[in-house]
C-alpha cells in the first residue's frame, strides 16, 4: 500500500496487489449490507475504483484497510438510499463444493440465507452498523467513523439492530 501513497502514478502491480488482498473482504462486507450478489459485485468494483482514484486522500497507510472499508460502506449505503430496496440473493451460479456432502451444503446454505434474511429486517444504517460491529468485529468508535455519525448514534443503531435481529431469530427459531 505504501506504493499507492508515495507515487502519483501508481504501478499496475501495486493496484492489482491492493485489489487482490482486499477483494474478498470488501465484497462480503458489501454483500452483507445489500444482500444481493449482482449488486454487491457492481458496488465492490465501484468502491475499488473510487478508492484507487482518490488514493491521495489517504493520510495514513496503516489505515488503508479501514479507509477502503469506509468507502465500501458509504458506497453500499448510498446505493440503498438511491434504490430504497433490498433484494435477496439469486442462485445464478450452480453450487459446487466437493468437500461437503449435499446435506451439509444445504444446511450451510440455509444458515446463510437465515442470517441474511435476519439482516434484511433491519434498516440500512442498523444493518451497516451491525455488520461492521458484529460481523467485521470493528470497535464501536471505528463504526461511528465509517458511518459518519456520533458514537451515541452508532450505539443506538447497534442496540436496535441486535434487538430486531433477536426478534427475528425468536420468530424463526429452528
Amino acid at each position: 500500500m505504501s506504493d499507492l501513497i508515495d507515487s502519483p502514478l501508481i504501478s499496475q502491480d501495486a493496484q492489482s496487489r491492493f485489489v487482490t488482498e482486499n477483494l474478498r473482504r470488501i465484497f462480503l462486507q458489501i454483500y452483507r449490507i445489500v444482500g444481493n450478489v449482482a449488486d454487491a459485485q457492481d458496488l465492490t468494483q465501484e468502491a475499488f475504483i473510487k478508492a484507487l482514484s482518490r488514493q491521495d486522500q489517504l493520510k495514513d497507510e496503516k489505515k488503508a484497510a479501514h479507509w477502503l472499508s469506509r468507502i465500501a460502506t458509504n458506497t453500499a449505503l448510498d446505493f440503498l438510499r438511491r434504490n430504497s430496496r433490498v433484494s435477496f440473493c439469486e442462485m445464478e451460479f450452480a453450487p459446487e463444493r466437493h468437500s461437503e456432502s449435499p446435506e451439509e451444503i444445504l444446511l450451510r446454505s440455509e444458515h446463510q440465507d437465515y442470517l441474511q434474511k435476519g439482516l434484511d429486517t433491519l434498516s440500512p444504517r442498523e444493518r451497516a452498523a451491525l455488520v461492521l460491529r458484529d460481523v467485521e468485529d470493528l470497535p464501536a468508535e471505528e463504526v461511528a467513523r465509517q458511518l459518519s455519525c456520533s458514537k451515541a448514534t452508532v450505539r443506538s443503531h447497534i442496540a436496535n439492530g441486535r434487538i430486531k435481529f433477536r426478534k427475528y431469530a425468536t420468530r424463526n427459531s429452528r
Partner: protein
Amino acid sequence: MSQRQHIPQTQLALYSRGDVGFWRRKLVERHLDRCEECAAAALEFVRLQESLSRSADVMPAALDGSGWQSLASEMSANIRLGLSAGECVSFVERPSRVALVTPPRLSLALAGLTVLAVLLAMENPVLHHAAVPAQAGLSNTLPTLEASGDETMVSSGDRGLSVPAPAGSNVIRTVSAHGAVRSRYVDDTGVTIVNVYAE
C-alpha cells in the same frame, strides 16, 4: 436495579458485546447474577452475535467452488478497466491537501476575502460576464460514453479510450441512468461482459 425491575433490552444488547461503560457494566453484571430472565436474554444476544461473527468469511452459497474465483477475476478486470478509463478522461489536477489551514486561519482568510469582495463590489457594481465562454468550454472536458457498431468509447475533449468487441459478434448493450454502458457478447472464449463507467 432490583430483580423485579429488569434491565432494558437496549442495555442488554449493548452489554453482550462490551459496548457499555465500566459502571453500567458493573450494574448489569450485578443484576444478571440474581435475575435468570435477564441472564437468559443476555446469553441469547451473545449467541446471535457469535453466529453473525462466524459468518464473516463465509461466501454466499451461490458463489461456492469456482463461482467466487470467476467473479473475482471479472471484478478485478472491471476495476482495471474502470481505472484505465478514468485516467484517460481525467484532466483536472486535484489540489494538494492544505495541512496548515486551521479553523482560526480559515476564518481570518474568509473574513479578509469578504472585505475584499465588498470593496470590489463598491468600486465596480456592474457584473461582468467574461466567465461565460469559459463555462461553455467546460462541457468539452465532460466524459462522454458512446456505443456504436462493435465498440464502446469513453472520451473527453480530444482524448478517448475505446473497448472493441470482436467483429461480427452479436453485442447486447445496456445503458444505465448512472452513466454506464454494459456490453455483453459471446465469442470463442465464452461470455464476455464489459462495463464502462463515466464519472
